[in-house]
């Protein structure tokens, strides 16, 4: 009966359901998108390597000009000290970056030049496609050798074998000894447009010695803990050592030591908020959909006053009328909910196909939004149903 009544006014029923459809679809799609973003961020951080500690100059509290990575408080000597003195640390890889022009014969490109040491390989967990990485000899003797990122190698050499060839970085000649396998991009930064050179060579020939510094500054020191369990011990020991070396007795740290777990936790707290915000937004649209149902049901009660009067005249009690209208609004909400779930699931499919996010369909989101839309129908159907039930049959029939 209720289905028939709703079917008799398809356009209106459809428009009423639209609110619920959009509400449900957005709950499911938003929650899925949020969770996918969360997974994506987690995966990105995990790709940085496990058990890795990142030590950056500057402090998080000091404002943008002296923020992480911008200050010059961290030096190559700090990195060497960490390697020598912190027992919980296995390998240490200092990093000094600069974006420079790289040329080979007539080909040229911009690349991120990373001055580092052989330990870069175990710490950052990279693998080589061709040749070798920087060797201890290269480092100690400051030999002009370079290892190319896969994209830089492709741009400069195409199908040609780059090993043994000479490239120029800012007019300094380097011999190519290896090509790193593709690392993809992390947080939108392409890791393959890169040239790795010994850090001493970078300091001596590319960036130059800084005035008033006994040891060259670095932008980042990555250190790997000996075991997963010793990461926090390493973090503590590094902090102590650097405070001592920097003479920070009553001062704040002028560096930041972060473990991958810290980064994960920070990211998780951000993405949690993202999921919540998306969830609330979607919930609000569900609420709006519910109000739409109430609106239409009120119109429907007014429009069907005679029907209500007739039903009452032939014996319907208030509760019968009330139940009838409530069921109608629940049916609207539930059908709308089902369609909305369909739309939501479809849009998750589209999201998975068109973005790097791999969105999973959350069964709990489906269950929740379905339950919520059902109860929305119930709650927002009650007021119109009450209106209908309280109509006086005489007045209703004469209207």
């Amino acid at each position, binding site marked *: 009966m209720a289905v*028939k009544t709703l079917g*008799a006014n398809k356009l209106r029923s459809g428009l009423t359901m639209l609110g619920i459809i959009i509400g449900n679809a957005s709950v499911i799609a938003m929650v899925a998108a949020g969770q996918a973003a969360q997974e994506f961020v987690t995966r990105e951080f995990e790709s940085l390597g496990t058990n890795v500690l990142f030590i950056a100059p500057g402090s998080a509290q000091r404002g943008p000009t002296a923020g992480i990575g911008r200050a010059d408080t961290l030096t190559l000597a700090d990195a060497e000290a960490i390697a020598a003195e912190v027992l919980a640390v296995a390998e240490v890889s200092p990093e000094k970056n600069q974006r420079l022009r790289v040329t080979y014969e007539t080909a040229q490109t911009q690349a991120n030049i990373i001055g580092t040491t052989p330990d870069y390989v175990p710490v950052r967990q990279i693998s080589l496609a061709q040749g070798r990485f920087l060797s201890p000899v290269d480092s100690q003797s400051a030999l002009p050798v370079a290892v190319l990122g896969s994209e830089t190698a492709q741009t400069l050499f195409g199908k040609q074998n780059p090993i043994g060839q000479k490239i120029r970085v800012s007019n300094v000649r380097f011999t190519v000894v290896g090509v790193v396998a593709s690392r993809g991009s992390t947080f939108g930064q392409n890791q393959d447009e890169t040239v790795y050179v010994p850090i001493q060579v970078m300091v001596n020939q590319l960036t130059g010695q800084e005035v008033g510094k006994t040891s060259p500054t670095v932008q980042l020191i990555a250190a790997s803990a000996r075991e997963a369990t010793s990461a926090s011990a390493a973090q503590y020991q590094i902090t102590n050592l650097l405070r001592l070396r920097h003479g920070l007795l009553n001062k704040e740290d002028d560096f930041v030591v972060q473990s991958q777990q810290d980064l994960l936790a920070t990211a998780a707290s951000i993405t949690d908020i993202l999921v919540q915000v998306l969830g609330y937004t979607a919930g609000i649209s569900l609420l709006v959909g519910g109000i739409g149902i109430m609106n239409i049901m009120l119109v429907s009660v007014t429009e069907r006053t*005679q*029907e209500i009067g007739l039903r009452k*005249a*032939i014996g319907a*009690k*208030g509760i019968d009328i009330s139940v009838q209208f409530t069921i109608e609004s629940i049916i609207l909400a539930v059908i709308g909910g089902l369609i909305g779930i369909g739309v939501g699931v479809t849009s998750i499919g589209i999201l998975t196909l068109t973005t790097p996010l791999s969105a999973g369909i959350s069964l709990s989101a489906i269950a929740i939004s379905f339950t919520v839309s059902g109860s929305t129908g119930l709650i927002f159907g009650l007021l119109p149903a009450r209106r209908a039930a309280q109509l006086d049959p005489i007045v209703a029939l004469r209207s």
Partner: protein
Amino acid sequence: MALIKLRRVSKTYGMGNVEVHALREVSLAIDPGEYCAIVGASGSGKSTAMNLIGCLDRPTWGDYRLDGIPVSTLGTDALADIRNRKIGFVFQQFYLLPQLTAIENVMLPMVYANVPKSQRRSRAIASLQKVGLGDRLHNRPNQLSGGQQQRVTIARAIVNRPKLLLADEPTGALDSQTSRSILDIFTSLNRAGMTLVMVTHNEAVAQQCDRVITFRDGQVLSDRPTAKAVTNLMLN
């Protein structure tokens, strides 16, 4: 025992500060099996009387017993139950639900009477056959003529086997020939024992009944048998 018994029944509507006395101490008795017309000009109180008799409304003062039940003291749900089981309504505008077929419209009162689903269909069909619409079961109201729609209404009114059939201007929306066929159905229902009360302002229609009660200014002006009834009495 009278099926309908009104004793000094009054109905007053408060309209702001002005009180409108729609009925003033009306006493009336209608026995089972009677075929009775209530006539009067508009504002005479006949519609109010009809609403009270139909248990759609309660008297302000006085006592009304339907089939011995003191309905003036009942609550709205109990009244709904009385209307459902004891009274069948036939309206001038039919009030059929447009989205339902003839048989579904006729089944409607049985839904509220909690008649088992298995019986609803057969009873609705029997009811529609009684009014000569056995071949129009699955037509919607807009696929039926005015006369046919009114017959569906009658089928709906009698499907719960009420004691009283209450018709409000049943021929008001119909041409004279169709009116006659509707009145014929009423006559045959009455012969089968149904008590019929019809509100009309059409004198010719009223004369088809056995008794005419005339209202004026909220009171019964006259209450007499029709010539047809007198003739029938004399002939028997």
